[in-house]
């Protein structure tokens, strides 16, 4: 479904991705972990073309991701993204946020989309917040709307970029439980996260990124409980006992 091959990326002289190769199969949940600055978010953003890459190949469903090509829009419509800071449209209600993509990008009939959007908001536990604007919602609620917005596009996969990092600790659980439910339903997910409990419990695989390269990857439980590499052990020690 998602395949990266020897992907390199530099920002003004600093190489942030140094030959990353990995893949995510349909229905798989993969968690990307690593210290900040290790290139996790950049990697995620290369997959839907929000970031360009210098060398290598990124493919979604066999189609090459090229941010400069108009075809990138089709890929983006199929691979949704959930951001750390939610990025809901502040001038639209929760319901309008969810409807925006299907109505204006996929040109679906408004009445059908509205029904689906309402169902999606109910699914993330926000049926009573349809008419609220983002500023009237808590961080956790906003992130759940953002997930509903992603789902409204009926994507083949969803990329999560540290979806709980900007949340107050007591609001993290509500977002993770929505994500857990999605994983249970078979959604293909690539999740950049520091929530090791979530990764252990939900992910099929965990990929540990260190200074722009994959240092270790494997079954979630294996990597998280008995990592082979010293740097992985070190990282896990730091996130679990800060």
């Amino acid at each position, binding site marked *: 479904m998602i395949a990266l091959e020897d992907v390199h990326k530099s920002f003004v002289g600093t190489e942030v991705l140094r030959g990353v190769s990995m893949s995510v199969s349909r229905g798989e949940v993969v968690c990307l972990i690593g210290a900040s600055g290790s290139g996790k978010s950049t990697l995620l953003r290369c997959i*839907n073309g*929000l970031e360009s890459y210098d060398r290598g190949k990124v493919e979604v469903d066999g189609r090459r991701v090229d941010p400069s090509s*108009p075809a990138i*829009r*089709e890929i*983006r*419509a199929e691979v*949704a*993204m959930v*951001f750390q*800071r939610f*990025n*809901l*449209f*502040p*001038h639209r209600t929760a319901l309008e946020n969810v409807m*925006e*993509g299907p109505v*204006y*990008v*996929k040109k679906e009939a408004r009445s059908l989309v509205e029904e689906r959007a309402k169902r999606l908001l109910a699914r993330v536990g926000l049926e009573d917040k349809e008419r609220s604007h983002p*500023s009237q919602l808590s961080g956790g609620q906003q992130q759940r709307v953002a997930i509903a*917005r992603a789902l409204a*596009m009926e994507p083949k996969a969803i990329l999560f970029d540290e979806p709980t990092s900007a949340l107050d600790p007591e609001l993290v659980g509500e977002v993770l439980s929505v994500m857990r439910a999605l994983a249970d339903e078979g959604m293909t997910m690539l999740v950049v996260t520091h929530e090791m409990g979530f990764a252990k419990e939900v992910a099929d695989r965990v990929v540990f990124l260190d200074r722009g390269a994959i240092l270790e990857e494997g079954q979630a439980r294996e990597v998280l409980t008995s990592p082979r590499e010293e740097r992985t052990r070190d990282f896990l020690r730091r996130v679990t006992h800060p």
Partner: protein
Amino acid sequence: MEGFWVDARAFLPLLLRGAVLTVVVTLGALALSTVLGLVWALFRVSQVPVLTYFSKGVVNTIRGIPILVQLFYIYFVLPEFGIELTALQAGILGLGIAYSAYQAENFRAGIEAVDPGQVEAAQSLGMRRSLVLRRVVLPQAFRIALPPYGNTMIMMLKDSSQASVITVAELTQQGRLIASSTFKNTSVFTLVALLYLCMSVPLILFAGRLERKFGRK
């Protein structure tokens, strides 16, 4: 004081006619400057180098020439190239173009103040650039640009008096004509000032409301 009321009764009909022209010039120039300003601003942020430089050049040229000179140019020089405009048309065109530079900067500031995350969110839904602009960036940019837009409206109302130099018989010009033929400077210019206040105070209050509603978001 009694004399003032007598004068007011005598001069107000003419002055009100001038005030109507002031409103026409202001609204016309406001509409034109808004459209042009938006065009310059969109060129500026287009990421197309030719358009960006063109917009920069136009805005700086307009900002670098006094409004009076621009009005003279349009009214007295364009006819030499076969473009004849009435004083009112020239006034609206001149003020509209002059103010488009300020509007452009105002709109550009609004557009650039929109969180880049908003653009990314829109792109990640598969929106094309024009749709991102229309559905996500511009509605938010307008909210940011509204309070300064309110101020521009007030400045424009007052600056519409500059159209008097090319014989537009707006409020200031009417006042000047009456004063020079009656010598009742105090009455006439007090009335003129009061009429401007009657128009600008509601605008100031309106701009204040805009500021409170959108300024802090």
